């Protein structure tokens, strides 16, 4: 039962239904009913052409896509762990939906704390889910979308009932939510503060024909999230014979897009100046020329483990020319999430990771896929983490 005094707003689900949440049967992973349901939600979402992030999510949960994802989990005797409590980040509009969909594919009842910000995307997605639930009434027991303030009692309530807790939102949020105890057998998936890095092979870049496309992919991977997402690269590492000319063209191409599409607020410009000065005090660096404050480049001459403490956002790029990729190993520690690349064979980069086995780098993807969500995230297999295996 939900105590009366708790101020929870149910966008989907209600307090009465919630009182019976522990008697709901989990589903097998990638169950037909879950995938059909998501597919029906997808059809409604694909109408929202003005919201590319909603569209992308819609594509991700369409039948063809979930079938493809399911193929990687074939013939596994796995069913959902039970109840998943998702805490979505407050400043990314659609992340909550991915977390929810993964929880449902894994066969679970989902309680999702949606962003506190009133993003229109939250409204669009919740409304599509609600309408779809009318066509699939048997799925209603599996979906709770809630909104509430930072109230410890509510965190306690949901944490005490769930079998897996999924915390997005970084170190500060994890610290806060961890004050609420879990059941003894519950597990937890935490998405801590992390950073990402990018490597570009300069000669391959100079040979590439689609430089505008590359610039646009890089723009999407960085500026679309104010370069503030854990998967947005903070440092660009160049290799090759002609790094100087490649860099000039690369940043010039990016500048054109940034000038057209990115709105830099005054306080962000000041923030970047502070970041640069702090970097300059502690590390040898050189400010590279750029047309304006939208792109700030700081050339670095030595890579050490503390370097990424000086990383910035909103278009603040550390830049390093490497003779050998092993030079970047000091920043491939546990906080390093994604290695995005251009101009390399994926096998070469995989090899680099397999040989050196750094504590970090959980993803190796081309620029164009830097922001793509996948069921393997931050080193977790979300399906495995939210389901249990029945051994024979």
């Amino acid at each position, binding site marked *: 039962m939900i105590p009366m005094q708790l101020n929870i707003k149910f966008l989907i689900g209600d307090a009465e239904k919630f009182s019976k949440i522990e008697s709901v049967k989990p589903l097998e992973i990638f169950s037909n009913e879950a995938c059909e349901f998501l597919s029906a939600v997808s059809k409604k979402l694909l109408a929202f052409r003005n919201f590319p992030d909603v569209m992308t999510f819609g594509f991700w949960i369409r039948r063809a896509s979930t079938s493809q994802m399911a193929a990687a989990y074939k013939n596994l005797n796995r069913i959902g762990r039970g109840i998943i409590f998702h805490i979505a*980040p*407050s*400043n*990314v509009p659609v*992340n909550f939906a991915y977390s929810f969909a993964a929880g449902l594919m894994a066969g679970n009842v989902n309680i999702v704390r949606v962003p*506190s*910000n009133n993003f229109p995307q939250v409204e669009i997605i919740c409304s599509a889910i609600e309408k779809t639930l009318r066509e699939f009434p048997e799925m209603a027991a599996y979906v709770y979308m809630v909104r509430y303030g*930072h109230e410890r009692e509510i965190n306690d309530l949901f944490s005490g009932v769930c079998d897996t807790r999924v915390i*997005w*939102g*970084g*170190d*500060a*949020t994890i*610290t*806060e939510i961890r004050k609420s105890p879990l059941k003894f057998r519950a597990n937890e998936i935490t*998405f801590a*503060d992390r950073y990402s890095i990018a490597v570009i092979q300069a000669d391959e870049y100079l040979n590439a024909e689609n430089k505008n496309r590359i610039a646009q992919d890089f723009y999407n991977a960085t500026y*679309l*999230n*104010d*370069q*503030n*997402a*854990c998967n*947005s690269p903070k440092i660009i590492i160049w290799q090759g014979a002609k790094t100087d000319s490649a860099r000039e063209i690369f940043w010039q191409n990016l500048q054109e897009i940034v000038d057209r599409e990115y709105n*830099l*607020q*005054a*306080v*962000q*410009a*000041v*923030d970047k*100046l*502070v970041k*640069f*000065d*702090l*970097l*300059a*005090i502690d590390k040898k*660096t*050189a*400010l590279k020329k750029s*047309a*304006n*404050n*939208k792109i700030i480049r*700081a050339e670095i001459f030595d890579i050490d483990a503390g370097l990424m403490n000086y990383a910035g*956002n*909103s278009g603040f790029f550390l830049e390093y020319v490497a003779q050998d990729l092993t030079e970047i190993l000091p920043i491939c520690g546990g906080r390093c999430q994604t290695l995005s690349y251009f101009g390399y064979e994926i096998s070469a980069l995989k090899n680099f990771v397999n040989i050196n086995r750094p504590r970090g780098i959980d993803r190796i993807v081309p620029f164009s896929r830097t922001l793509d969500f996948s069921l393997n995230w931050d080193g977790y297999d979300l399906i495995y983490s939210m389901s249990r295996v029945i051994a024979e």
Partner: protein
Amino acid sequence: MSYEELLTIEPFALAQDEKNSLLLKNLLSLTEFHRANCVAYEKITDAINFRAESVNGVEDLPFLPVRLFKEAELASVLKSEIFKTMTSSGTSGQRVSKIFLDKETSLNQQKTLIKIVSSLTGSARMPMIIIDSPSVLKNRQMFSARGAGILGFSIFGRKSIYALDDDMNLQFDRIAEFVAENSGRKIFLFGFTFMVWKYFYQVLREKNLKLDLSNAVLIHGGGWKKMVEQSVSPAEFRRALNEVCGLNEIFSYYGMVEQTGCIYPECEHGHLHASVFSDVIIRRAEDFSVCKIGERGVVQVVSMLPKSYPGHSLLTEDEGVLLGVDDCPCGRKGKYFQIIGRLANAELRGCSDTYAAEH
């Protein structure tokens, strides 16, 4: 020109052209001084490839973001020469600026303040009411902006009392007595804007207490942000104070702990004025180029004063607009401007929340 010599110039008498060459020369030599005496400053200016020979005007000089003084300790004198450290009055949990002062810089701050303020109030010392609590000055090692302001302005007081007790209660009887004792003399009131509003004006008004301060002058500054939050405009502030105690002469000023001494007083036309010792440059956020008259931008402040710390050229986080040069109807020469407020906080996208900050 030495700072001593600068102090002989009338604060608002120089036309901008004359002032610019004076500023350029002094600020450039300060830049070189700090490069030679503050390693962090040297590293920063090296990293942006600073070259003195490519500086053609004051606006070409490098500037540090004022927030850097909250994140790093920057001094251009030996530790042993630091005789006081001033801090900004941040609210609890916020980081505060740390400004290191040696005897010379501290003394010059005081002399500069005297020059500027006495051009407003005359040079005679007056009975003074400090609208604050004496507890602000208890810790003499760490000077807060409030403490520094009070001490700085106390020079203009002949005999002074605090209007508030340690618990911020208005000492009405004491004040009334003080006003009576000094009837016929001009009284000088000083306080931080928000303190004056909350602990002086609001208490007088709520308790319906009457004071006659029609022959007094109030100087107040700092913390307009809180006033904006309470939607009190400068005009409303003047009107309200006049209503409860008959105050007519009210001067506000713009200034900051990072450049103490060089305050920018507001004239009778509501314009802030740069004195000969310092100046403002309004910059576009997009590329930090210089704004035209009338164009809003980020405020940079330069001052010929800071020698013990590299704070002679600072980019603030305030938004302002240059209103004109040399032609304010009040007769003061140089630039006059207006502060619009703090730069708005940006709400960044991205997956890491500032969970705690949301409370």
